[in-house]
């Protein structure tokens, strides 16, 4: 993409218009950039505030005087130690990983296959199928959770890992379908035809030609699905027993009862995790775009 010079509604080559008025451009542009800066601060600052507070040596979740003086004694790793040593947190991390990884694998496999079908011009009722597959993303999660609670307990999957995995797979599928179909829309189907004409079977052509090219989309979709499961709390709240408690469920309990800086340590861990995921997806998208 070619870089565009910076421009505002009043910007650049508006010399004719500007000449008539007493430089409204500079003031207007200042207000506009200042406003945007404030909005961006509003977006990012709450997240950044969490990070230093998680190193608080005191059990408060506001800045102490020592922290403001940058006194090293005011900072500590005690909350990180506390969560690392607390079996409740480590067990919920294991649960989050079991559910998240299983749901991601299932959603990615089924979702990629479906996206291949959806990308085909021969697919009948494409639009209906697509809106059905994306509906878990749009349906208010409290409704999904209530329905899943009724349904999964009626078939004996309430309070089981399997039930939770199936539920989280359903919630992750839209992300896989969206990212993979988006990648496939840029895929040149002549490539598979060329492979076929050179004697490759459909499976071989898919594995050696198509899959490597759409891999960035598949991996992005998988990461989205994993992030969805890893952050999901409402379905867990309704469906999970003590044995299936995940990290978000544990955070939920912590926020409702009393926020201790231990929660902020977990939150910081999740912020770092999200940033890494984002960086990977951005890198994949750039690779996919080339």
């Amino acid at each position, binding site marked *: 993409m070619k870089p565009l010079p910076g421009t505002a509604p009043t910007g650049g080559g508006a010399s004719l218009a500007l000449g008539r008025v007493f430089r409204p451009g500079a003031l207007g542009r200042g207000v506009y950039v200042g406003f945007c800066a404030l909005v961006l601060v509003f977006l990012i600052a709450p997240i950044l505030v969490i990070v230093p507070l998680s190193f608080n040596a005191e059990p408060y979740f506001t800045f102490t005087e020592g922290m403001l003086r940058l006194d090293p004694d005011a900072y500590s790793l005690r909350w990180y130690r506390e969560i690392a040593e607390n079996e409740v947190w480590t067990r919920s991390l294991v649960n989050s990983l079991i559910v998240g990884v299983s749901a991601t694998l299932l959603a990615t496999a089924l979702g990629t296959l479906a996206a291949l079908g959806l990308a085909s011009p021969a697919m009948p009722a494409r639009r209906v199928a697509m809106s059905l597959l994306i509906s878990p993303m749009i349906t208010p999660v409290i409704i999904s959770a209530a*329905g899943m609670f009724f349904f999964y307990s009626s078939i004996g999957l309430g309070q089981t890992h399997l039930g939770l995995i199936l539920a989280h797979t359903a919630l992750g*599928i839209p992300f896989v379908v969206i990212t993979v179909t988006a990648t496939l829309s840029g895929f040149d189907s002549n490539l598979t035809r060329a492979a076929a004409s050179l004697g490759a079977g459909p499976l071989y052509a898919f594995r050696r030609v198509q899959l490597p090219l759409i891999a960035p989309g598949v991996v992005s979709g998988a990461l989205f699905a994993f992030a969805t499961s890893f952050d999901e709390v409402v379905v867990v709240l309704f469906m999970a027993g003590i044995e299936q408690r995940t990290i978000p469920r544990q955070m939920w309990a912590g926020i409702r009862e009393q926020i201790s800086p231990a929660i902020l340590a977990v939150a910081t861990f*999740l912020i770092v995790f999200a940033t890494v995921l984002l960086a990977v997806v951005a890198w994949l998208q750039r690779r996919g775009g080339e």
Partner: protein
Amino acid sequence: MSAGGRGRLRALGLVLPLLLFILVTFVAPLATMLVRSVHEPVVADALPATVAALAEWDGESPPPEAAYEAAARELAAAREDRTLGRVAGAVNRVRSGLRGVLTRSARSLGGVTEGPWRGVMEGIDDAWADPATWHAIRETGRRFTSRHYLNALDMRRLPDGSVARQPEERRIYLPLLRRTLMVSAAITVLCLLLGYPVAHLIAHAPERRANVLLALVLIPFWTSLLVRTTAWIVLLQTQGVINDVLVTLGLVGEDGRISMIYNMTGTVIAMTHVLLPFMVLPLYSVMRAIPRQYMNAASSLGATPAQAFLRVYWPQTLPGVGAGSLLVFILAIGYYITPALVGGSSGQLISNMVAYHMQTSLNWGLAAALGGILLAGVLVLYLVYDRLVGVERLSLG
């Protein structure tokens, strides 16, 4: 078979596994919930003879002796097989106070073997002489019922079968629904006002700077919802960071700390923060595609910046405005987590009421009906979105 037919079959074969999976793991649960909103067989199953005996009753004179006898035997039996609690709960939701009447009566009836039953039951509790008690049993005895939906719309069925609105002071759900719509609309407008300039700035910045600015939008987008909500609690609570700063600066006194959280203000601030990226991203992708020559052309033809913006730029961004606003509004009306954590008692939305009836009052039929109404609203908006924008163009940043 023709080549086209084979292609169709192949495409369908690829999509079918996932369609079946979604039907079982997602659509079936929603269907179960919708069935629950109209189907409540608890009383019909436990008191079948009583319900049958009441079918012929005129509703005003005392019910037939057969009804008293059936009720006496079936209540005692329900107590034996432990379904009484659910039966009493269901009846109690139609007429409060009857839970105690039913459980007390069932306990006292355990040893009684002979009638006349009307005398026996009215001796146990006066409520059995009141036709309203029998109305409640007859009403809950219907297997398929509209009462949860009536209840969810602040209406009720009168003894003569007609439908009336609840008295003013007992209307809960319609005002809450209205509040949910108003708050969601307000949040959508806020997101548009905050998001439009930012999307514009990012869309027309040099690429390297645009990437940095975009990251400032995407990091919150990717960060756990619970983390973002926690962050707002840390910032906004009375002993929180913002109040501390205000006190330190002397802008407010120590006892003048502002309550910005655990009320509607908290809900609106935190939800705007959570949903803002959903507005910025579609706007950004639309704006990026607008050639800057258009604005230059407008200016060189003598348009003022305001005219050029209103007549040339803004109309071209309307698809993004529509997509972003619809998405934010759809997500806002179903929001649960943020209001539950930062909304206090005044900042709750309709989803929170669904959760309340699921988890606390255990009135699952009503929870399902409220969910059904919310689901219908979201589906309509989703169809509009699909028509106007196309679901396949949902962007994920």
